[in-house]
């Protein structure tokens, strides 16, 4: 890496929301102050991330050591901001602002209980997300990864009913189970193999390690399944289970933060732990490719059969995550670039869709696709945004999703993996198949008989509609102005 800037900015960016959590608890009786705290923290966080942006785009990296390693006894706790981390941090912190607004509208609209706890843990989750984004070595990455699993548990089980308990239990069993059972030993094995180096800086950690193909494959599988937030089958079923959470949680965490942390970790494993060269030499990445491809197709098929809108979105998310994993496992520069871009593109698209699902629920109490007939007339903004989000996730112009898919397909072609290229194309068609009937039903089918005819527009509260409009517009804008994303992803792939 060319040059390193030492700065505590990444730490403060992380802490911004962590410090907000106690303040939120403190102001639990003053609703205005409490929500203002959330907003201030969100903006401060975004500001801090933005402040780092020029340094990153100029080709430098930021490093900050929080706890020393003391003579290589253990890896230090270290922040390091590079292009990929920046991209992810930008997406997460900008969407937090929008989500905060949305959450206020949603939670108030539904008169939810324990809102303070909700906002506090939301803030902590965001800290953990940025921690993952800025982690400078595997140990730090793992630390924040676990923190995120735990901090999101109270959010998933927010409703405190039986369903929430079951969902929460599945959630933790999968996430903690795999991370302790697979990722931790893989981590330590890596530490031993690399002779005490877990840092993402410089060459890949295992680049010069002596590793046989069998060992490499086991290690790679342990990492990919260990970071099961990436939702690869067979460790995916926590995600639909987690849909019992309130919609803002599903929106930000299960479309952006948590799941993207999973794929982010997988990308790190591919690029910084193994390194593209080593993987190409060992030839083990194709195993992951095929698991991912399988996940893409199967989850799309399952998504079609789901009537619960949020579950349909959840299965769609599983598919889209595996797009990203598939992309990196192709090991071609363009595919990797496409993967990284897809983190952002899918985030904007999917969060819009979740916002819409939540807004529909707030306004009408409807949860199922089959109930949505004629809704386009009463909720034109919401359903319009839904259409845009669906287009982006499917990859229809003029939305951002097209670009990332384009890169992914380009990468597949580069890698001469035409079967996998076909997977991309087929699954895009499938995406269309499970999304567009929803849009069609909403706009072109008449409202069912017997339901009280609603005159004119009856949208969800403004605090709900505004965010989803913003993210929908964002999805479109990303198509026209992808410059920053391209630049950041090029930094990463160019650097390898």
């Amino acid at each position, binding site marked *: 890496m060319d040059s390193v800037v030492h700065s505590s900015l990444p730490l403060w960016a992380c802490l911004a929301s962590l410090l907000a959590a106690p303040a939120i608890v403190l102001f639990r009786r003053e609703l205005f102050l409490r929500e203002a705290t959330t907003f201030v923290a969100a903006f401060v966080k975004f500001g801090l991330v933005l402040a780092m942006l020029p340094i990153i785009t100029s080709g430098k990296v930021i490093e900050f050591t929080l706890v020393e390693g003391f003579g290589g006894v253990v890896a230090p706790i270290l922040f390091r901001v590079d292009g990929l981390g920046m991209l992810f941090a930008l997406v997460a912190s900008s969407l937090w602002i929008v989500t905060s607004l949305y959450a206020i509208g949603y939670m108030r609209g539904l008169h939810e209980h324990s809102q*303070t706890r909700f906002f506090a843990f939301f803030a902590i989750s965001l800290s953990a997300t940025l921690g993952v984004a800025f982690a400078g070595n595997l140990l730090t990455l793992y630390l924040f990864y676990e923190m995120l699993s735990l901090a999101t548990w109270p959010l998933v089980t927010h409703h405190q009913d039986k369903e929430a308990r079951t969902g929460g239990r599945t959630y933790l069993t999968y996430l903690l189970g795999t991370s302790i059972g697979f990722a931790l030993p893989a981590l330590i094995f890596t530490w031993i193999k690399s002779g005490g180096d877990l840092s993402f800086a410089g060459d890949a950690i295992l680049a010069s390690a002596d590793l046989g193909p069998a060992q490499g494959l086991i290690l790679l599988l342990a990492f990919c399944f260990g970071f099961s937030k990436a939702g690869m089958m067979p460790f995916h079923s926590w995600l639909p289970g987690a849909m019992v959470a309130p919609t803002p949680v599903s929106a930000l965490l299960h479309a952006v933060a948590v799941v993207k942390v999973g794929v982010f970790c997988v990308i790190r494993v591919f690029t910084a732990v193994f390194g593209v060269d080593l993987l190409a030499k060992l030839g083990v990445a194709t195993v992951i490719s095929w698991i991912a491809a399988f996940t893409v197709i199967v989850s799309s098929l399952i998504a079609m059969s789901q009537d619960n809108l949020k579950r349909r979105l959840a299965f769609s998310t599983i598919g889209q995550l595996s797009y990203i994993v598939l992309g990196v496992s192709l090991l071609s520069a363009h595919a990797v670039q496409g993967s990284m871009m897809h983190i952002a593109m899918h985030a904007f698209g999917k969060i819009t869709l979740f916002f819409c699902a939540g807004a529909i629920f707030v306004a009408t109490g409807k949860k199922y696709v089959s109930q949505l007939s004629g809704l386009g007339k009463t909720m034109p903004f919401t359903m319009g945004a839904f259409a845009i989000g669906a287009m982006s996730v499917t990859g229809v112009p003029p939305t951002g999703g097209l670009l990332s898919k384009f890169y992914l397909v380009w990468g597949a072609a580069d890698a001469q993996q035409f079967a996998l290229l076909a997977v991309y194309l087929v699954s895009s068609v499938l995406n269309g198949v499970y999304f567009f009937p929803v849009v069609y039903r909403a706009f072109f089918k008449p409202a069912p008989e017997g339901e009280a005819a609603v005159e004119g527009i009856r949208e969800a509260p403004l605090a709900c509609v505004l965010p989803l409009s913003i993210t929908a517009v964002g999805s479109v804008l990303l198509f026209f102005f992808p410059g920053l994303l391209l630049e950041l992803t090029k930094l990463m792939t160019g650097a390898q």
Partner: protein
Amino acid sequence: MSEQLPAIILLAPLFGALLTGLAGNRDHRRCFPILISALAVSFGCAIALLVQVSQSGPIDYFVGGWNTERVPLGVGIQLRIDALNALLLVVITTVALLTAVYSFRRAGEENTEKTPQFYMLFQMLCVGLLGITVTADAFNLFVLVEVSSLTSYALVAMGSKSRGTVAAFNYLIMGTVGASFYLLGVGYLYMQTGTLNMAAIHEILADPAFGKSSTVFVAFILILVGVWIKMAFFPLYGWLPNAYSYCPSTTSCLLAPLMTKVSVYVMIRVMLSIFGADWVFQSLGWSHTVVWLAVIAILAGSVLALAQVELKKMLCYLIVAEVGYMVGGAWLANHWGMVGAIYHILADAFMTLCLFIAANIFIKHCRADRIDQLEGLFKRMPLTSTGFVVGALAMIGVPPTAGFFSKWYLLRGGIESGQWGYVIALLVSSLVNAVLFFRIIEIAYFGKNPAESHDHAHDEDSHQGQAGEATLLGGEGRPATVIPLLITAAIVILLGVFNAPVVEIIQQALEGMPVVGAAAAAR
């Protein structure tokens, strides 16, 4: 003055105990300040010793001035403090001090009539444990083990629960067998070497002529079995769960973190300082067997813990599993396994303390000790629950708590020595711990307390401002119990975050001792 520190650290609680006996009988309120000041002196000494040792190497202290200039090594009574036991001294005194704070008024409530006696025993136990740690003499070790054991039998029996006395009796029988085996082993060692000083024995045993001696072999087996009984290593654990769960709460807070850990320390000390790593790991060649025993201990402890319905019982079985961690780690026969085992002694002491204090507060406030009766505690006692959660996360091994890093070192040792069974057992036990603790957390987090279920409005948002500020801490225990808990929780996290310097000290200790590395390097 500073060269007398090793004596003062023992004498402070000893005189404290005497003073408590003299002054406390008239006025029970005098006991507590005496206890705290005695332990504070010990704590100060421990810190000073740790600093001194880590800067200038091991300290030898000859009781009564029978030093090596006057008599050969092994004639006078010697205390020896190296980096390893200096660390342990700090742990023991810290735990004792925190428990002492916790015992404020609590001990009086639990042993109304016998408060001074309780505090005397408390301090004598500390003398015993500290003595075990500092002594450099194999026979004195036995005497001090008996001092600590005798006081702990009495402490366990002091509870109001009648099952406690039965448990204490079983504990006594098992404990005596353990100590006697140890004594017998020392006898055989003495027969072979003619000395009782650890360093002198080690020097003599380093002679290859003794490598195959069956006397030494028998001595080692006897000592090992004795120590295993004392630390409740798996098949010999029977006394522990009842003894620790039916004793007074203060006693459980003191015994659970310390007794087994100190026994593990004794095992490590015997392995490294008396017999020497080379003999233990190479001439004996038992590593695999013992590690497999440890694997069984870990799995059995975890499974038995899963089957428990009482909170404290469950924690006791977890101790059994944790002992398996440490024994396994120590017997991995490599550097990082040993580092992990020693680090886990420290980490586990605080983790256990954290959980036991929290569990005791829970039990006191719920007036029930079954896990399913802990409903809705998080809302009533947020601080205590936080402490409990920290302890639980450390047990599971979530970063950045101390539990994570000890697992890290142990796993590293396990992977390096290729003991995959041990690695898997550690991971399985982490997962079992996760299941166990999230079961509790779920109950404590969701369950509606019957008393609270009617006022749903208690929820802060729907009717804000209606219930005053008082509710935030209203349900907590008294500060004297909650503050030590929070301090312990903080230590658990800090010990994790700043584990590297601690491990540095452990490594320094292993350099000073005939190193495990010697055996590992020979591979």
